């Protein structure tokens, strides 16, 4: 029996060794490297191994940092609220109002296909919509809602959030739909039989049972938005900043130590948020 136990652990690790190797080489070591480099110093042309708190002093001493982190969290919260609302409604429709399984699968696929296409192209696609002479403005003008084209449709917080919601809502739809499909329909019938209204059933039965899916979706959306640098650059026309942009700017200036320090703070922030969220859900059980 003892030998069997050892054997199980050994063969487990053997099977997991390629995965472990990739994660050590391309995840653990890079993070360790970033932490180390965040204490180094930089000149305009090169980086110098040293130990100094200079980068962190500068980071925490600058008001820009707090503004940018605040902005990042603002984006995350707003996008989370929208993706949750839209994602839940869409998943609810698919799970409880579409009756045949064939239709459910077909419509579900329709919702997920954009996930497998390019994010950058999907971002670019908004330009003909939102620009000064774009579709949205021509529609608003011809409907008589405004006389002049609205400037804030593109290259603004509005377009950044719109693009985020567009890109990431399916990360909410998929896990919430997954948990909804596993709700025992007799529980819902029991609620109705007990005299609950549709709304009461929703808030007292369905939403609590969907919590794991909501949590998994939240983890995806929050981390994707907090780690983003492309969408913000692109959709704000470089007018707004988030932490990812801050890091990318430093990289472009070859200021790797300062980029690393910002990256470390961002990573700690993200991991803290995830740590809190993971307390509410056991991902392995929910798949």
């Amino acid at each position: 029996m003892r030998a069997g136990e050892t054997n199980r652990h050994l063969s487990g690790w053997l099977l997991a060794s390629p995965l472990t190797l990739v994660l050590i080489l391309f995840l653990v070591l890079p993070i360790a490297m970033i932490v180390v480099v965040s204490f180094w110093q930089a000149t305009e042309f090169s980086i110098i191994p040293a130990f100094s708190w200079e980068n962190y002093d500068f980071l925490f001493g600058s008001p820009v940092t707090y503004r940018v982190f605040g902005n990042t969290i603002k984006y995350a919260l707003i996008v989370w609220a929208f993706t949750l609302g839209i994602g839940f409604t869409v998943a609810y429709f698919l799970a409880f109002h579409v009756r045949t399984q064939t239709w459910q699968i077909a419509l579900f696929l329709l919702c997920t296909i954009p996930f497998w296409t390019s994010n950058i192209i999907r971002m670019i696609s908004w330009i003909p919509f939102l620009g000064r002479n774009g579709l949205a403005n021509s529609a608003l003008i011809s409907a008589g809602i405004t006389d002049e084209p609205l400037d804030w449709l593109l290259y603004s917080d509005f377009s950044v959030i719109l693009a985020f919601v567009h890109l990431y809502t399916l990360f909410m739809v998929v896990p919430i739909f997954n948990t909804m499909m596993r709700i025992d329909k007799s529980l819902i019938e029991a609620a109705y039989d007990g005299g609950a209204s549709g709304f009461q059933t929703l808030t007292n039965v369905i939403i609590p049972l969907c919590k794991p899916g909501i949590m998994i979706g939240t983890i995806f959306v929050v981390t994707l938005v907090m780690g983003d640098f492309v969408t913000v650059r692109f959709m704000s026309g470089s007018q707004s900043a988030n932490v990812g942009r801050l890091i990318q700017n430093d990289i472009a200036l070859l200021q790797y130590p300062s980029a690393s320090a910002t990256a470390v703070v961002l990573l700690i922030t993200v991991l803290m948020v995830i740590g809190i969220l993971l307390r509410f859900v056991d991902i392995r059980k929910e798949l």
Partner: protein
Amino acid sequence: MDTRPRSFYVLGAFFVLFLLFLYGPTFTIAILSFQGPQGGLTFPMRGTSLHWFHDLFQQQAVGDIWGSFRRSFALGLMVMVTTVVVSVMGGLAFRKRFAGNAVLFYLVITALVIPSILVSLGVGLIFSQAGLPIHWASSGFGSQLTWTLPFGLLIMFAVFNRFDKSFEEAARDQGASNWQALRHVVLPIIAPSLIGVALFGFTLSYDEFARTLLTAGSYNTLPLEIYGMTTNVTTPVIFALGSLTTAFSLGIIGVFLLTVWSMNKKRAKQGSDAGKGMV
């Protein structure tokens, strides 16, 4: 058939609007990529033509679109094969509940939630400090795996959570070795989900941008090329490229879906092979 409640129509309308929101922009650039030669980045259409598609096949003024497409395609295949093999092995490993599996699991979750730019930055730094040249097939390949492997593994978890172990036990009772049970029982049962893992592996790699940004070296992948074009191309040629690569992605998705569908159909037709004596 009983009548549907009013909420069905309200939610149905919401769903249709959501689909419009999801697909509308893509359709718009698909239409705009057929702009006439004088046309610009927005409506109105100044005639229709294949001018901008034609432009893509000309000698490039900017960058190397076809070279980058070939690299992205090759990289996608490499990542796809690796993701399938490593995820299956990982999925089988986690079933054994080996000591320390929780640590590995949290590493996988970290790989999933870590901001992409950190992977890009860290891998770039390691390669440069170690004096290794960064290249899409080495550093780029590894960076992309940190994104595709968690997805592959999560799918494997979902698959094995639903896997009926009694099939495997039955095979062992009949004297199958571990390997035989795996080869003739487990793998055929999970095969359709492996196609899903392959789809994730290929498309996530083909479209990956952030993790390859600092790790691809001097030869760009297609998303990097497109990203470069967004800053200096002001003609609908970028829409033509966008439509073409989206069509390519849709084609790939279609191939994968067809494969799953025909596999299921073949299975249903063959029915059970009990008593026919395999192996």
